[in-house]
């Protein structure tokens, strides 16, 4: 086998050194009753060319976004990835390395992570960012745990129903057997968190209020007000950002008063890849630094006064604190922090802004055009590159019709919001040309696309 370097001579000599007569004897420590007595029922191995042939066939049986007019967002965004990103992350010193526990031979990973953390802080307007959590949803759940941990006696969490449904579900799973009480906050007619409901429910039990920014319907929540209300009752405001490109244009949650900012970094250079791996980012203000889950890379000086980077605050981690760690997370998204770092470095200050403006403008155009169609009602108020639309017919039916013209018009809202049977969520990025948008509009209007 091409991955196995042993020759039969090697095996013989090694067994001799060990003092065994055969491979079988190596397993003498495995009780007979525990042995598998038949070969694995998995087809024999295959050559690389057969393998590639089979995988290509499976890959071709999927509707890839580059070959369809795809307006899908909902927590995973189709942005262009410059070739530089893949070129650099393909360097094996990065991707075949282990977690950088051995700083002498991991400075590359460590510095790259340090830079990633810094850029996440700049983007979110926060003081400290970790590296990293699995994805936006689990980061959101960890944020809830942090809030409960830090708030001491408080154990109630108010989750906006306009927060990404999968984030909400994940929060609930994480809290399932912990002394945390979860309540949901309704959204109002403008598809943002209902402020009156929030005021009504905020009490001394509430550890945190959790909202999306933008929220699942694409709306920009009024973070400043939400923060003010939460803080007034001693609760933290957790902001979950599923589309962080919005932060290239809109005020940062940190600036608006958020206490914890989490989100999904996939937009920044990570392939869609059917939803994973992405990366959960997580940023806090100084006060919560020690409660931060996961890894943190810090700057240090070596004995010669040279700057270097190391994993810090390890004492909060599972390999030291075991059951009392701030999180059980171990392997996380190292390679994805690298992708995000490279992507952000390439775009930089101006690129990110311009890209965000393009997304905003394209979505604005699409929303306006769709809004002009009879029977279609897009959400009103500020959105970034995504917006919910109420349609004149059930989403399932509408979407199926557009698929016939190779258009993926959006995500049906009804699975997560049964009351919105006619609702779809439409996302428009820089990857969607005006021509594509016009085809979408024509398709929605019922004309041939």
């Amino acid at each position, binding site marked *: 086998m091409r991955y196995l*370097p*042993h020759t039969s001579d090697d095996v013989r000599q*090694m067994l001799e*050194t060990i*003092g065994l007569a055969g*491979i079988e004897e190596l397993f*003498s420590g*495995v009780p007979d009753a*525990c*042995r*598998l007595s038949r070969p*694995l029922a*998995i087809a024999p191995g295959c050559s*690389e060319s057969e*393998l*590639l042939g089979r*995988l290509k066939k*499976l*890959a*071709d049986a999927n*509707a*890839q976004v*580059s070959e369809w007019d795809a307006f899908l967002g909902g927590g995973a965004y189709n942005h262009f990835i410059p070739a*530089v990103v*893949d070129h*650099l992350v393909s360097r094996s010193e990065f*991707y*075949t*390395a282990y*977690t*950088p526990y*051995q700083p*002498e031979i991991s400075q*590359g990973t460590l510095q790259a992570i340090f830079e990633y953390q810094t*850029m996440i802080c700049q*983007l979110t307007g926060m003081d400290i960012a970790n590296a990293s959590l699995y994805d936006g949803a*689990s980061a959101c759940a960890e944020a809830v745990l942090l809030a409960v941990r830090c708030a001491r006696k408080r154990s109630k969490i108010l989750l906006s129903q306009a927060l990404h449904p999968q984030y909400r579900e*994940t929060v609930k799973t994480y809290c*399932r*057997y*912990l002394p945390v009480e979860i309540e949901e906050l309704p959204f109002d007619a403008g598809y943002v968190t209902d402020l009156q409901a929030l005021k009504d429910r905020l009490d001394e039990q509430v550890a945190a209020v959790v909202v999306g920014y933008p929220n699942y319907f694409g709306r920009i929540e009024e973070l400043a007000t939400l923060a003010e209300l939460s803080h007034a009752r001693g609760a933290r405001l957790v902001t979950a950002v599923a589309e962080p490109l919005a932060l290239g244009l809109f005020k940062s949650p940190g600036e608006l008063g958020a206490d914890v900012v989490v989100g999904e970094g996939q937009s920044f250079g990570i392939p869609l890849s*059917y*939803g*994973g*791996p992405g990366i959960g980012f997580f940023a806090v203000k100084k006060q919560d630094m020690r409660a931060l889950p996961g890894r943190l890379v810090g700057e240090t000086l070596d004995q010669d006064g040279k700057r270097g980077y190391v994993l810090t605050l390890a004492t909060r981690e*599972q390999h030291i604190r*075991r*059951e009392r*760690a701030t999180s*059980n997370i171990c*392997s*996380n*998204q190292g*390679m994805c922090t*690298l992708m995000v770092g490279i992507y952000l*470095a390439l775009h930089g200050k101006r690129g990110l802004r311009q890209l965000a*403006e393009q997304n*905003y403008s394209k979505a*604005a155009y699409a929303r306006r055009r769709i809004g002009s169609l009879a029977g279609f009602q897009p959400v009103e108020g500020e959105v970034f590159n995504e917006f919910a639309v109420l349609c004149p017919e059930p989403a399932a039916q509408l979407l199926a019709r557009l698929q016939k013209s190779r258009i*993926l018009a959006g995500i049906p809202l009804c699975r997560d919001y049964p009351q919105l049977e006619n609702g779809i969520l439409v996302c428009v990025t820089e990857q969607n040309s005006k021509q594509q948008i016009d085809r979408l509009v024509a398709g929605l209007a019922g004309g041939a696309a």
Partner: protein
Amino acid sequence: MSGTESRGLVLDEKLLFESSDPGRIGYSLAELDVPPAVPATALLREELTGFPELSEVDVVRHYTRLSTWNYGVDSGFYPLGSCTMKYNPKINEKAARLPGFAELHPHTPDHLSQGALQLMYELQDALGEVSGFPAITLQPAAGAQGEFAGMLMIRACHEANGERRTKVLIPDTAHGTNPASAALCGYQVVPIASDGQLSAAAVAEAMDSDVAGLMITNPNTLGLYEKEIREICQIVHDGGGLVYCDGANLNALMGISRPGDIGIDVMHFNLHKTFSTPHGGGGPGSGPVGVVEALQPFLPVPQVVRSEAGYRLDYDRPQSIGRVKAFAGHFGILVRAYAYILAMGGDGLRRATELAVLNANYVRARLEGVYDLPYKQRSLHEVVFSENNLANDCHTLDVAKRLIDYGFHPPTIYFPLVVKGALMIEPTETESKQVLDEFCDALLAIAAEAQEHP
């Protein structure tokens, strides 16, 4: 390994922010083909203070240089115990980047994602066959999340049966994620002492009606097969508990012994260990979980199922613990693991296990005596030495640092905690005798140095 001398911490590549120059750019956008629009000024952020401004060239050089301060499996031997740093096949990287996979949106309807779903379904099957479990979830993002999902299912099962058990037994050799994951499920952790291997007697003693289950690692982190595992499982089951197996060491068992056959109820896989997906400098990994039938109703949603009409994501699972993350798992990693299994085949997987165990035992045979071996039982895929035999107050950390001078990545050190100054070596099957010899020679030379030059 010759030729890869470590360069130590000689780092003076500037930070991105320091080499940044106002106005420099590394991107370009197509011209906007719709009317430009901007949000209300009150919502607009100021410019991104401190954010880098670099050209494409700057970025390429920066990361290229950073990479040279790193060390990967492709650079040389990486004997980290408990990490299974095997070779990451290049074709897997290519596979994960096929446009039909990389450019597939997770909200694509099932009937337009049949290739991806089929791959996941077949991967579930293959993992089930390797482990002996009838059902697999591919959702967990890494081993620790697999542990969490698995322990949640155990708890959900007890609660469905109206039981409110509060404790989980965990042997002292366990990885730190085990107690941390149990704690996340609201369990109280009860450590059990083991003497190399966990005894059925110790478990029996600790077992009571408050115990929800046991988390065991098999082979354990000393590389030893838990020889009383069947008895132990029986005891836990008899006491009304369930048994979780940390599958991090599955590389020792493929085709040899199946956790699902010997009494384990739930186990996670580390695809980034056993199934050759890259560690990525700390992830992303993937931690599927296999369960026995009794736990099946509690699997996370969605689950990939097959029906007449094709493959589909099933959300209709009322007893499910819910989801532990967004979407259906680290699909990009699943593609790599699937490719690995296809390339190896059933026999190849077993052969990988045989050679991994051969390699570890060869290293053991070459070093034993010079390095102290605290547990003498026949070990499997890894071997753990202590620092006891080292002369002149030389410690494990010294050995590790010296190994870097010799051009090798050090083994895992100071874990498991039960061994004083543990040196935990897991060569994996993708290392040749030649490489192992060079590594053992280096370790023997270091021990001799300690002797001669205190």
